[in-house]
């Protein structure tokens, strides 16, 4: 404890670097060393003069030997440069797309994440407290079903029911086309609150309901399971029994137990957030949500490896940041962690 939390965060933040390096290396090896010429993949079967191909190669930095490409790209990453797109529109910095697409993905994941944690905590706690009952079985079944829901399918079912049958919720996009909103952060809900735009707030929330429910419900299954199993373990532990033997009130004991059960859940949150990002790609595609996911899928159609690489590195950075936050929260909550 000598050097305090600030120092811990600093040192822990340094540990992001190797993680990103490793992922970058893996991605680089995959994208550059596996068979296939990215440039030819972009142009496809179209007949293009050789000098124009060379030009393209040069622009993408592909005319140099792989190890130089490796360090080149790394050097540019350090300066916040994620490369340029190789397909239509060609030569746009990938960074621009990240800036414009990331807020949409962030908004979706924040809502999805919140829903999944709340649902998971509720169902998991109920299951553990009523352990062995029909309610418990029901919750465990919920956890399995939620976990195995296929996101596009579930999303489309929701679209069919709420969009078509009931006709109450929008099924695609982030905002009604006839509403204008001045963007500040790119998170529409936040922006409409900041600008006091009630219409936009209602519309953006309405657009968020189905995608974030889809994502939230599917991801909540893992929490239900973990919270239940942890809480069941904790509730059978000696110190809980000791609490009971001391005449402590039941609701207080449940809170103490939850606090203990929550510690491993925090660890899961970091991992779940990564899975959530994966799920977001499918959700975005299903709901035509203009985020990073739909962008990646677009780029795949063009075989635009530069963009894919940039996006993945950005995801890696983001995931590492989340795991840093999770670790710090963990250290704050658990006195057993030394820092």
């Amino acid at each position, binding site marked *: 404890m000598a*050097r305090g939390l600030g*120092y*811990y965060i600093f*040192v*822990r933040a*340094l*540990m992001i670097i190797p993680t990103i390096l490793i992922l970058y290396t893996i991605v680089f090896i995959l994208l550059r060393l596996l068979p296939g010429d990215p440039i030819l993949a972009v142009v496809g079967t179209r007949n293009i003069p050789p000098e124009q191909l060379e030009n393209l190669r040069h622009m993408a930095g592909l005319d140099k030997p792989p190890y130089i490409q490796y360090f080149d790209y790394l050097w540019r990453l350090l300066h916040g440069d994620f490369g340029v797109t190789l397909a239509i529109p060609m030569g746009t910095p990938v960074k621009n797309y990240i800036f414009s697409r990331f807020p949409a993905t962030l908004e979706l994941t924040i809502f999805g994440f919140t829903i999944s944690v709340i649902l998971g905590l509720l169902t998991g706690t109920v299951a553990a407290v009523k352990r062995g009952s029909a309610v418990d079985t029901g919750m465990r079944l919920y956890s399995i079903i939620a976990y195995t829901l296929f996101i596009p399918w579930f999303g489309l079912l929701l679209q069919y029911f709420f969009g078509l049958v009931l006709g109450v919720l929008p099924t695609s996009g982030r905002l009604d086309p006839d509403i204008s909103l001045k963007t500040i952060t790119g998170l529409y809900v936040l922006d409409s609150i900041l600008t006091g735009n009630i219409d936009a707030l209602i519309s953006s929330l309405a657009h968020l309901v189905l995608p974030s429910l889809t994502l939230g419900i599917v991801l909540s299954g893992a929490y239900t399971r973990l919270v239940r199993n942890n809480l069941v373990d904790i509730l059978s532990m000696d110190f809980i029994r000791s609490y009971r033997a001391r005449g402590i009130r039941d609701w207080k004991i449940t809170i103490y137990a939850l606090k203990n059960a929550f510690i491993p859940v925090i660890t899961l949150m970091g991992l779940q957030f990564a899975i959530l990002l994966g799920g977001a790609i499918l959700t975005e595609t299903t709901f035509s949500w203009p985020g990073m996911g739909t962008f990646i899928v677009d780029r795949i159609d063009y075989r635009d490896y530069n963009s894919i690489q940039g996006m993945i590195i950005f995801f890696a950075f983001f995931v590492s940041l989340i795991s840093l936050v999770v670790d710090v929260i963990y250290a704050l909550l658990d006195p057993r962690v030394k*820092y």
Partner: protein
Amino acid sequence: MSVVVEAVDLRKYFPVPRSIIDVLLHRPREYVRAVDGVSFKIYEGETLALIGESGCGKTTTGRLLLRLEEPTSGRIVFMGRDITRLKPRELRPLRREMQMIFQDPYASLNPRMRIGDQIAHPLLIHKLATPREAREKALEMLKRVGLTPPHEFYERYPHQLSGGQRQRVVIARAMILKPRFVVADEPVSMIDVSMRASILDLLESFRREYRLSMLFITHDISIGRIVSDRIAVMYLGRIVEMGPTEEVIRNPKHPYTRALIDAVPSIARRKRGKKLRIKGEVPDPRSPPPGCRFHPRCPFATEICRGEEPDLVEVGRDHYVRCFHLLGK
């Protein structure tokens, strides 16, 4: 009598695990001095009981003798041969001669191997028998340790046995190689009271038959008294007193030994009045106190104890003590 095993100034320092953060912060590496300069001899057919509280280094000492742990420094001499630096390959043939019996009979058997096979396995490892012969010998051994009918027990898995029965299997597995030396690490501390004697009797019968030498590790000096010829008392990685069993128990010279003996509950002397009580708990083995390691807790400690560490000196026939203020003078 010939010496079977000798430990010479044996030391084992375990590095305290550091996280990457500790490394980045250049925090100095710390060591747990589990065993810190231990020397003794065990003669043929003799049992030495190693007594001490948890964390005193007694188990590590046993593991060092068998080279299950690499010593930091010091020497281990087995049957006149220095085995301290032998490589795992060179050591393997020697494993026939030295065996170990563990504390926890629930954890020391492979849950997925039939107990008969576990007893036969050592013979196969050392290529001392064909599978058929090994099976025959294992069956004999099962009978010998009282697990009858042997054919039935051969087929069972550990979870189908009680604690006492498993410990018999563990003993059979160690004894099938007819070793010269055995380290028994708390072999009865997890066995129900009413069955301890039979396990100890079993060990005793093998000891007599094979003229075994034994290091018997225990925290319970009253068990140590039953099985041993000599006793060594360990405190914070060092032997503080060593001598013939009855002599040490009836006439302890080190305050720690005396406190240990007084703390053991006794039915025969349940109404005894005066006990030597010591304060506090065992200090952190990462930073043992200077001078005599026992001095912070010792009721007789003086200036000299704080500054200097006493040597292990002979105070009676074969009776060694590490203390400036011997008791009972």
